[in-house]
């Protein structure tokens, strides 16, 4: 059981590239924290610094109030699950799981007991004497987790552990990881670029961008209340609809479109109006007009894509729009729909700074 504290962590690589620009974070005992962000944002670097695989350029990392900057990876009492599993290919499953314990000099009987227990928990006890190349991807992933579990570490570190699995397996393993973590109550840090994984696994989610935390909080909080344009567009699938607008003191304007009901916004500033696809609904009195060009049927729900008529086409933002509806609503291709949204659910951002204004 452990807490992890990051205090103004910075990382600069020898070639001068800055990966992490000062991150503060306090992870509580038993908490499942997910770092999510686009590739190259520094999330993996942060994880590797906690693991001890990267030096810390500046700042301090504490596990259970003990500064571990100079502690070797093995003595930090953390276990890591790698993206490509990193199983020792020449050892059996048992050998893989036992290796860390053997290096710590545990008696044989105890090692055996721990390996058997962990294997049962992960349902891999039938494969204990096989080698990794005789296992499927999902089984290898379980072995990699088993290797972490047997160590009974203070902190689990997951570095995109599911990205090598196929979609179905990924969902299964995701659920299993969550259950396992809850059952064992071990503090965990999980890195991913997949926002669905991030949303579903996290107790708290840290959205990382360009070496900084953009926002950290409960997943649903980040979805409903993103602090920045980046967070709003990163969290949520399908992506939030973004419409470039300007405020004239009374209305938000975009090309021929006008949205009323907004106030206290800066004038003569480029703003972005953000509307989640599930907030939009077809309505003949709607404020938006859309020309349908694609309907994706996901089963219980349909996603309708098309062009937004009349909006200004500032560079960087196309005028595509998407909304989510039930399976029975299936507008014809090329039909024109009116869409309504409740302005209480709309968000407004400063285009320049990304800051959320409403």
């Amino acid at each position, binding site marked *: 059981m452990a807490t992890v504290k990051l205090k103004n962590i910075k990382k600069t690589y020898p070639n001068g590239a800055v990966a992490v620009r000062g991150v503060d974070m306090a992870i509580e005992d038993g908490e499942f924290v997910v770092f999510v962000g686009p590739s190259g944002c520094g999330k993996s670097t942060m994880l590797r610094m906690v693991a001890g695989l990267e030096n810390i350029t500046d700042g301090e990392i504490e596990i259970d109030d003990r500064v571990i900057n100079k502690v070797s*990876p*093995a003595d930090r009492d953390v276990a890591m699950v790698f*993206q*490509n599993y*990193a199983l*020792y*290919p020449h050892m059996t499953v048992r050998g893989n799981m036992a290796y860390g314990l053997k*290096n710590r000099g545990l008696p044989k009987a105890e090692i055996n007991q721990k390996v058997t227990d962990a294997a049962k928990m992960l349902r891999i006890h039938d494969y204990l004497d096989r080698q990794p*190349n005789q296992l499927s991807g999902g089984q290898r992933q379980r072995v990699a987790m088993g290797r972490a579990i047997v160590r009974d570490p203070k902190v689990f570190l997951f570095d995109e552990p599911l990205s090598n699995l196929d979609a179905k397996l990924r969902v299964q393993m995701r659920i299993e990881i969550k259950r396992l973590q809850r059952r064992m109550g071990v503090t965990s840090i999980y890195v991913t670029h997949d926002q669905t994984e991030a949303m579903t696994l996290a107790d708290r989610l840290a959205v990382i961008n360009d070496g900084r935390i953009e926002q950290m909080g409960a997943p649903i909080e980040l979805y409903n209340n993103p602090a920045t344009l980046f967070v709003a567009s990163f969290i949520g699938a399908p992506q939030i609809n973004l419409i470039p607008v300007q405020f004239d003191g009374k209305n938000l304007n975009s090309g021929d479109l006008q949205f009323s009901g907004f106030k206290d916004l800066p004038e003569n500033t480029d703003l972005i109006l953000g509307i989640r696809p599930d907030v939009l609904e077809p309505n003949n009195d709607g404020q938006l007009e859309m020309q349908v060009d694609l309907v994706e049927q996901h089963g219980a729900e349909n996603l309708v894509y098309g062009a937004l008529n009349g909006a200004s086409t500032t560079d960087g933002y196309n005028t595509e729009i998407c909304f989510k509806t039930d399976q029975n609503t299936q507008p014809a291709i090329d039909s024109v729909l009116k869409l309504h949204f409740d302005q209480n659910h709309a968000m407004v951002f400063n285009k320049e700074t990304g800051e959320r204004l409403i």
Partner: protein
Amino acid sequence: MSNINWRIILNHTILLIGVIFMSLPVWVAFSTSTHSAETILREGLQFWPGTNFIGTYREVLFEQGGVMKSVLGITMLKNSMILGIGFAIGKVIVSMLAAYAIVYFRFRLATPLFWIIFLTLLLPLEVRIIPSYEVVAGLGLLDTNFGLIVPLIASATGTFYFRQFFKSIPEELLEAARLDGATPWRFFVDILIPLSKTMIAAILIIMFVVGWNQYLWPLIMTTKEENYTLVIGIKQIYQILSEGGELPQYQKAFALTILATLPPVLVVLFFQNWFVKGLVESEK
């Protein structure tokens, strides 16, 4: 269809010609070695085996005066074995350790050092043979196995191959091992060596053959006949033949030649099996 068959026949014909071309001299040498000295002198090289196989080979291997004045063929065979095996094992150990240091330890001179080692590939043994001799002689190690083998075991080729191989091993394995509490030595022994099995086998084969065939170095390093290797023995026996005197013992010279080629052939056959199996298994 018949078109393809013709091609197969043509290919096989070419291959067969190649095989015959390469192995016929060996066969003739073997056949000739099984005839008596008189037959060879009278009738020249022999294509079919004779009846003297056991006699000649026993004389060459086990009887004093059979090949050299005092040293037995079997002793030279043993000396060659020691040289070949010591040479191969020594090279594997030294070059693996060197490659391990270069690939896994971040010290400032790693890259320049690697290139310096690599450059020594360009220098054949003969370039440094006199200074090396000086050193070994100065240490009083002439006529010892240690003096014979150790100066040869630094290997740029081996270091290069192991370096390339280590670089192909995913870095996550090292990281996982570090988190598993493996010391650098344990990582080397528990993970790198087992993963390098096929590579080690390949280098062992190559180096054994190279070591076995060494001529100049053992010739200089050995002064006593009982330390001669087979390759030196062959050279000496042909020399004795040309000096004349008695009836030239061609069959013994051929027998010694056949004996000298046998161990490398066996090593290659034996290890290659293992080596191919290892390659197939460690895939993925």
